[in-house]
């Protein structure tokens, strides 16, 4: 395995990574192929699966009901491979806005959204999101009305969360693919809302 680009001496932790990996491979605990496969799998995983779940729920109210009841089962219904994921979907409405944080580390629905962004893992987000969510959301450019209830979900244990945003107006006839394009990762975490044709 080679790192692309300029040659630089390894940092202490990069040296640790190479060394640990070689030891594990020598002992037969891991293989280079397994590691490479997993790297590829995560490289290709963006948030598309999350967007698709939302778009499907928008178009199919019965599915949406099942999603809110038992999200893991509903995702499996769609043929998504989510081994071990215990998912909980929280729905935004006119009266309720949801957002996700993991104050203790950086728990994240990786199987649906890929690797979490740096800011989600940052001290500032993890510290402030439970205490002053409106201020943090405003920094993200999202101002939530005082009349709307904010629900912050702290992923402290085994559950993982996905926000089901409100479907934008003017999208009634849209296909699932077209709807999915409106839903980016920030919408699925509750730090943004999808913009429709009328926004």
């Amino acid at each position, binding site marked *: 395995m080679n790192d692309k680009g300029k040659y630089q001496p390894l940092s202490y932790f990069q040296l640790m990574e190479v060394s640990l990996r070689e030891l594990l491979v020598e002992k037969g605990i891991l293989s280079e192929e397994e590691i490479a496969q997993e790297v590829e799998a995560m490289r290709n995983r963006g948030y598309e699966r999350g967007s698709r779940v939302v778009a499907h729920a928008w178009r199919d109210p019965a599915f949406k009901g099942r999603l809110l009841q038992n999200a893991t089962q509903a995702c499996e219904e769609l043929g998504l491979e989510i081994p071990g994921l215990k998912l909980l979907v929280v729905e935004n409405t006119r009266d309720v806005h949801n957002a996700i944080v993991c104050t203790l580390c950086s728990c994240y629905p990786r199987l649906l959204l890929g690797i979490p962004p740096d800011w989600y893992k940052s001290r500032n987000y993890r510290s402030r999101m439970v205490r002053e969510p409106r201020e943090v959301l405003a920094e993200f450019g999202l101002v939530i009305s005082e009349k*709307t*209830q904010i629900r*912050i979900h702290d992923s*402290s244990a085994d559950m993982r969360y996905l926000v089901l945003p409100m479907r934008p107006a003017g999208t009634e006839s849209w296909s699932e693919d077209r709807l999915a394009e409106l839903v980016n990762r920030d919408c699925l975490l509750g730090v943004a809302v999808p913009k429709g044709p009328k926004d």
Partner: protein
Amino acid sequence: MAAARFKPGEKVRVRKAFPLGHVRTPYYIRGHTGEVERVCGAFANPEELAQMRDGLPPQPLYRVRFLQREVWPDYRGNPADVVEVEIFQHWLEPA
């Protein structure tokens, strides 16, 4: 599996303890009172798993809803704003 002691809607208080070890009950919520939003199921105890033990029998895990204005004395925002935290049964007592 240990039986679920609490039901959705029930008021529970988070134990005010600060033990060493790997704990998944956040510091900010200890000692506070909230309402059970749902029973998530039962899971192996992370405090034990962290010590390379099996954490069995699985313990009931709850999502507990707390009013932000009760958790933070200086909270500004909608008085109905909440924070919802997953808490294991052994950290909860009836309120």
